[in-house]
Structures are given as C-alpha cells and as structure tokens.
C-alpha cells in the first residue's frame, strides 16, 4: 500500500509520560507522527516562571483570598473525599481529572479510579518519584535491566532528576549511573531521621529497613524553560515554575523537533485493523460526539492502562469478561519525632518526597515494600484534625504542636497483593477493586516492622494511625496487557517484548498496561524508559 493512503505513519494515543517518551526517538526522523489527545489544557496551566510565586507559608500568612487556591471559587474541594491526597483535590489540578470517568463510561466498585484527559495526563499532578526497575523487579519481564539501561539514561537526562547517586542506601535501589541534579535541601525532620539512620545503620538494617534520600523528577537547577524548585512549598497546590516534571511541557518541544503533529481535542474511541494498518475512530474531547477517523500504519497506545485496556478489549471483542489488573496497595502513616516537638513550621520547603525507604519481605516469597516520607507543612490541618478522636479545637491545638515534628509516610506493596478486575463493555469500563488474600497479614507484619524500625530512628508511629488506602488510590494501574515472550493464554492478548500486541502487527502498548507486573517501586519512570525503548525499536525498524 502506498504511503499516501494513510493519514500518518504513526499515531500515538495519549500525551502522558509514556506517549511523550515513545515520541522522542521517533521525531526528527522522516516520519509523520501524530499524537492524538483530548488535551485538556486551561490557560492558567502553562509555566509561569516569571510570575510571582508567593510561597505557601507567605500565602497562608498574608493572603485573604487564599481560600480560592485551596478550595476553588466554588468551594468544591470541601466536599471532596476525605481520604484523598490534596493533590487530587487541589483546585489547580481540577482540570487534570475532570471528564475522565464520563468519557470512558467508567463505573467502579470498591475502587478509586483516577485518570486524565489533560495534556500531559496524570503527570500534571503526580508525586514525581522516579525509580528504575532493576533485574529483580524485572524478573517477570521478558526484558532485562540491560535492555532498558540506555533508555533510563536518556529519559533521566531529558526530564531532569534530582537525588544522590552514592553514599546512600537507596541510590542503587533507585538506579545508578543516571544524570542527577543535586538533591533538594531536606526538611529538618528528614535530616534528623537520616542522620540517626547513618549512626545506627546496622541496627536498623537488621529490622529489614533501608533509608536514603528520595529520587524525584524535580529540578534543583533550571532546565530549558523550566525553573528549579525554589522551595515555595506549593507542590501540592499548583506550582507554576515547571520544576516538577510534566509531560505536557514536552509537547511543544516535540512539535519544534519536526515531523510531529500534536492534535488535541480528540478522544480515540476505537482502534480497528484495516489492510496494512489501523483506523482510529475519533470523538470530541469529552468522548461524546463522533468527529471522524484517522488511519495510520502503526499505532502506539499510551492512553493509560484503563484507556488502552478499553481499546484493546473492544478490538479483540473481549467484552463483559473480568480481566486481571494490578496496582500497588498502599498504606499511609505518620511518623512523629518527639525530639522535634516544639519546632516551628519552616518558612520554605518542598512537599514532594524527602526520604525513601525499602522494607524487606519476611521471607523469600514476600516481595519488598517501598515508601516515601514527606514533610507535613503544606498539608491541611483540617484533614488530620477530623481523624483525631478529640474535639476539633483540641485536635487543632494538638496538631499545632505535632505537625512541625511529623513526617508523613506512604508505603506501597507489590502488585501481587492486588486482585483487581477490569471489565470492558461495549460502551464503558467497570473496575472492581480487591486486595489479595495475603494482604491483610502482610500489612500487619509490615506495620510492626515499620514501627520498630522508625522507633530506632527516634520516630513514633502512633498505634492505630496506619491507614490502608482504598484500592486504586495509588493510581499505578498496570499489567492488563503484559509483556510476554510468547502469546499467553489470558483473556486479553499480551504484548511481545517489543510491546507489539500479539496477533496485531503494528499495534503497540507502552503505558502501564504493558508491564508484566508491578513491584512496590513506582513504575512511572520505568514505563517512560520502556516507552523510549519501544520508540527506538520502531525508529530502527525503518519500515
């Protein structure tokens, strides 16, 4: 078939980290690459590096209109689900999530399904933890760490990571040999915890815990148009500096690189095979009205696990069948440092990960758990106060003393502890969340280990304070279309080591759906590296 018969050589569905990472190796080559995306992008979302960036503390202390920042003009954030992280409620992030459930016809049971139709996808509001899967993590994959190494390096350089590469017990775990900017300065609580760890390293490691500095996709030095973090502590509420990596920032750069067209306002409703390629059925950005179609020789699906699963499910006609999906069950808990009671709230800081830690499983079969520690400065006291059993003014008075001495921790468990089911229907998606049978027991042993380990570090984890998050709250949905060396016997087709869907030449999946499984390490950076790898493979293919 001649080249002119297809609207483009390559269509990428989705503008999140996966789609963008797959695009880079392909631009500049003699290809017609089109990125299709609903691309919701309000005017206030661009980088505003020169605009005033009053710090969080200054805003709190002086701005009489700050309530608009925290709740929105319509106070919508006040009615949001109490357990949700501020990231999910911040009015500045409203555009990230709006319209997603409706566009996909999404319904859930015991599952918190979060997705995005925005330019840049969920990277508009992610936690920015950037960790590379190593060979242990890739045990279930038909690719090795060596296969991914060049991509890890390329992505790290492209997006800007900050952290430490050595003299740190988590550096190897997060990935060595990557370009790193210097780490951001730590909150005093984190510094204290880390110093204590260094003094008692052997004793703490004996409990199975390893602690080190976090590795974040947050700039400590300017990079292109993006500005370094200035410790304004607005990470959760909408930072305009561009310090936190967001795939949306790369779309314009991709266009400038040539051979690449970004087409927003488009929701891909279906992918159908045609002779020599695929036809994409397009709807408007809200997923409502049909607006046309696009033909492409090859299609890269990067719509996010939920979206890509829907497209492939309808393509193969596997409807109304529950399919396995993994995510990282999560637990959250506070760590109080009694030595720091009486401290004040710092004027400046950052609200992303300060420290990271890893907890061994109690035996060979139990995978490790991984978590990150955050400062509590920019968290609304109201949310914590309502969880305490005391009167509201009493709780607030207590938190006034406690919060400056606290770190908040999350802890993720491997995807093998999840047992979610996703069902594709003719017009929608249903997700039913569940934890595996061994989850409850694992959480108990984990809580004991963490309490003991942090106690050695001078940290108190109050009894009963650990909260298991709702299934899906981690938003690391994965492994519905897993990479397998040979076609599996699953309800949905798997993808080959080149992420091409088995039985469908030229159709690729590069988002979380293609992971063979998720360990307790956040998979985003690995997804990006894998997408970069696939982009390179396709570019080399030369068809």
């Amino acid at each position: 078939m001649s080249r002119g018969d297809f609207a483009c050589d390559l269509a990428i569905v989705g503008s999140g980290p996966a789609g963008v990472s797959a695009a880079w190796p392909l631009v500049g080559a003699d290809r017609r690459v089109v990125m299709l995306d609903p691309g919701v992008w309000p005017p206030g979302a661009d980088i505003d590096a020169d605009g005033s960036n009053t710090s969080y503390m200054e805003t709190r202390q002086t701005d009489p209109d700050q309530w608009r920042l925290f709740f929105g003009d319509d106070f919508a954030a006040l009615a949001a689900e109490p357990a949700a992280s501020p990231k999910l409620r911040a009015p500045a992030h409203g555009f990230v999530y709006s319209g997603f459930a409706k566009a996909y016809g999404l319904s859930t049971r015991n599952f918190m399904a979060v997705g995005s139709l925005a330019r840049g996808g969920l990277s508009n509001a992610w936690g920015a933890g950037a960790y590379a899967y190593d060979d242990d993590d890739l045990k279930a994959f038909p690719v090795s760490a060596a296969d991914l190494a060049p991509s890890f390096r390329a992505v790290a350089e492209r997006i800007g990571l900050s952290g430490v590469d050595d003299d740190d017990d988590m550096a190897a775990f997060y990935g060595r040999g990557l370009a790193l900017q210097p780490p951001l300065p730590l909150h005093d609580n984190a510094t204290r915890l880390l110093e204590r760890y260094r003094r008692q390293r052997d004793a703490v490691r004996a409990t199975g815990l390893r602690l080190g500095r976090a590795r974040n996709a947050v700039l400590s030095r300017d990079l292109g148009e993006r500005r370094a973090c200035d410790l304004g502590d607005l990470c959760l509420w909408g930072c305009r500096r561009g310090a936190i990596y967001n795939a949306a920032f790369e779309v314009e750069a991709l266009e400038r690189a040539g051979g690449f067209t970004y087409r927003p306002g488009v929701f891909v409703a279906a992918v159908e095979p045609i002779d020599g390629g695929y036809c994409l059925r397009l709807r408007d950005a809200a997923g409502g009205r049909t607006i046309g179609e696009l033909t492409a020789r090859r299609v890269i699906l990067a719509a996010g696990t939920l979206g890509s699963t829907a497209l492939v499910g309808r393509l193969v006609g596997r409807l109304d069948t529950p399919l396995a999906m993994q995510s990282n069950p999560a637990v959250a808990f506070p760590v109080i440092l009694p030595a720091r009671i009486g401290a004040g709230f710092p004027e400046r800081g950052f609200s992303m990960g300060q420290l990271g830690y890893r907890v061994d499983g109690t035996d060979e079969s139990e995978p490790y758990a991984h978590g990150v520690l955050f400062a509590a400065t920019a968290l609304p006291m109201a949310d914590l106060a309502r969880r305490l059993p005391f009167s509201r003014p009493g709780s607030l008075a207590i938190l006034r003393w406690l919060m400056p001495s606290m770190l908040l921790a999350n802890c993720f468990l491997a995807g093998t502890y999840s047992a979610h089911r996703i069902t594709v229907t003719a017009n929608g998606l249903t997700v039913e969340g569940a934890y595996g049978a061994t989850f409850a027991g694992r959480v108990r042993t984990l809580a004991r280990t963490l309490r003991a380990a942090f106690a050695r570090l001078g940290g108190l984890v109050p009894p009963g304070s650990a909260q298991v998050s709702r299934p899906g709250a981690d938003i690391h949905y994965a492994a519905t279309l897993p990479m397998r060396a040979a076609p599996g016997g699953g309800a949905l087709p798997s993808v080959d080591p080149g992420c091409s869907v088995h039985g469908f030449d030229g159709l690729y999946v590069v988002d979380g759906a293609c992971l063979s499984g998720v360990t307790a390490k956040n998979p985003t950076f690995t997804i990006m590296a894998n997408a970069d790898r696939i982009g390179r493979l396709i570019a080399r293919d030369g068809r």
Partner: protein
Amino acid sequence: MNSPLHVLVTGATGYVGEVFCRLAVEEGVRLTILGRHRPAGLAPEVYTHVPYALGDSPPAEAFAGVDAVVHLAAASIGDPRDGDLDLRAAEDLLAASRACDVATFLFVSSQSARPDAATAYGRSKAAIESLLERSGECAVRAGLVYGGPERGLYGTLCSLVRVSPLLPVLAAEAPVQPVQVTELGRLLLALARRGADVPRRLCIGAPRPIPFKTFLAGLARAKSGRQPLLVPVPQTLARLAAVAAGWLPGLAGRRDNILGLYALRPMDSAADLQNLGLVLAPFDQALEQETARLARPADPGDALDREGRTLMRYLLGRRADDGLARRYAAALRALGQADSLALPAAAHRRPWQLRLHEPPGAAGALEFRLHVATSLAEASPQGAQRFLPTAPRGRLRGFAALGLLVAVEGLLLPLRWLLGIGDRR
C-alpha cells in the same frame, strides 16, 4: 377605646417583663417603663423610660394618664434580704398609683406567697398582697413560669438540663403549677384592660399540680432532645447544698428558690382559670411547639451566618474576621446545604460548649460543618496566625502542652459521648 391603653410597668427588663413588654407593643399598648435600665429588645420610640430604682420615691408625673400599673420588679429575687425593700417600694408605688386614680394595679405575686412562707421571697410577696385593698387592685399569683427567653429561674433550669443528662432533682415531688410566660403576659394585658373590674387575687398555673421532677424531665426532653436520667437528691443534702449556696454571692436567690420548692403547696387555680375562661396549654406540648418554632428561624440565611460566626469563634477562640463567617455560609450554600443546624441556643452565646456536643468518632452533620468551618478558618491569615506558628516554642513546653491537651480531651470524651449532637436538625 380611642386612645391606646397606657400601661406603666416596673421590672420590664426581667424575665416576665421582657415578654410582657413585647406583647404590649404588639397590641399597640403605650408603655411607660420605670426602671434603672432601658429594655433591650424594644425600639426606643414605642415606650417612655423613667429612671427609677426600688426604694426611690416614684415620680408622680409618670403615673399621669396611666390606665394600669403592672408591678413586676422585685429586689428579693436576687437577694432575699431585700424583702423589706420590696414592701416599701410596693407601698410607694401603690400610693402614687392611687394618687393618680390609676384604674388597675396588678401585682405579680407567686404560688409561694404566704405570711408564713419558708422564704423571705414568699413572705414578702404575701406582705405586699395584703397592701391591696381598693377595687382594681389585683395580686396575680403565678405558678412556675416557663418558656420564652431563658432567663430567671426558668433559664437556670434550662441550663441545668442542657449540661447534664443526669439530672439531680431537688424536691422531686414539689407540686409545681406551670404557666407559660406568654400566657401570663397576655393575661396581664387582658386584666389591664378591665379597669376596676378585677378580683383581689388570682391564682394562675396549671390546674392540676405536676411533680417537679416531671416538669424537669419534660424540659430536658424539649431542650436537649434526650430522655434525662433523674437522680433524686435527698432532702437533707439538698437543703445543705442550698444553705451553702446561699453564702456564695449571687446564689442567695437560688437558695431561696430551692428552699421554696420544698415548702411549695398547691394553689387552687382551677376556679380562677374557669372564671377567666382561660385554658392553659399543657406544659410539655407548649415546650415542644416552642422548641420546634425556634429550630426553624424566620430567615434561614441569618441562621447560617450565625452558625458560621459561632463555629468560627469555637475554632479560633475569638471572633472571626467578618469574611470568614460569611464565607462559611457561602460555602455551605455552594455545596447545597443551606439549612442551618439546630445548635443549642446556649452554644451561640458560649461557643466553647460545643466541645461537649461533638460526638466522638461520628460522621454526622455537625462533623461535616465543623470540617468546613475548620478548613475555611485555617485558610486565612487569622487561621495561619493561630494554627501555623513559625517560631520554635520549646520542647519541654510542647510536651507539657500536649500532655495537658490530651488529658483534658480524654476527660471530655465521656461527656461528648453522652451529650453529642448526632444528626439533629
């Protein structure tokens, strides 16, 4: 009558006086108010204020053209030693009234009025009653007055039943005969219109006496929404407590109330009520209706603003900047919740009391409202000043403060469990 009724009132700032004056103004009655202070709830143009204190010589010109005198003021309510003062004041007022040919003189007396009453209050009332001899002079013996503004003895009882669902009951069997304050006020107005055609004495109270404990139980149900647990207090103990209370400043009057309860005897109000053609509402029904009416404010908007001011004061420990309270109301309206909660009236005057009413661990309407108020209070410069200190404050001080806070909150927990407001609207 062409010209409106002109009534002279003493004790207009008291419990019954406040209601009487409001009713009078509603009926277009012209008021002359004798007293030290102006009444709070009345527009200045509807009455004439004449400064006067019990024991003063009443200004004769105030009585000119007056159709009726309603004498409610009594010093011996506050201090029983003022029984003599009350008697002399009544003599003077009666003389002034007779001198100006005032047609009606109404003296509001009490069920406990008896020459040999156990309390100075009762004896004083009886002594004043004996002064009345001319036609048109009437003593209205009122039973236990209840309802309306929570003041006087009624107010004390309301506070009592709100604080604790465990009610210590003194004089459980005392035969009280309740009369609603509005009914009493209307009766006084009706009598004032009758000129000289009033009996010497009227007994106004429930025709069949009610045990005091039953009255308290009904009051508790209406005011706190819960069935109270009545704990009868033995008489000796009660008397001792009363005597002890009498030594405390300001509580001497309450001592007399308590002792008076024990000596209370029923009065025959049935005949008087029948002659007047007056049927008193049963007290529990009247209380229930009143509570229901109060729970639905005339202007829901104002109620939400008031709720906001109260909750903000509760959380911030002081009055919130104006914007905060209004923002609370705006937020609730934006979230589709324009109804205000029926917070106890006392909580609006003393917001700290809400600490007792937060049900532990519950996720009810109050909890959500508190969350909204806390979130908004926090997100303000005033909130930052209160909740977000930047200077270090010392570890020892922190531990001490935390210990104290947790201890106090721990003590509050059982009370909150008992008194917590659930989904009450």
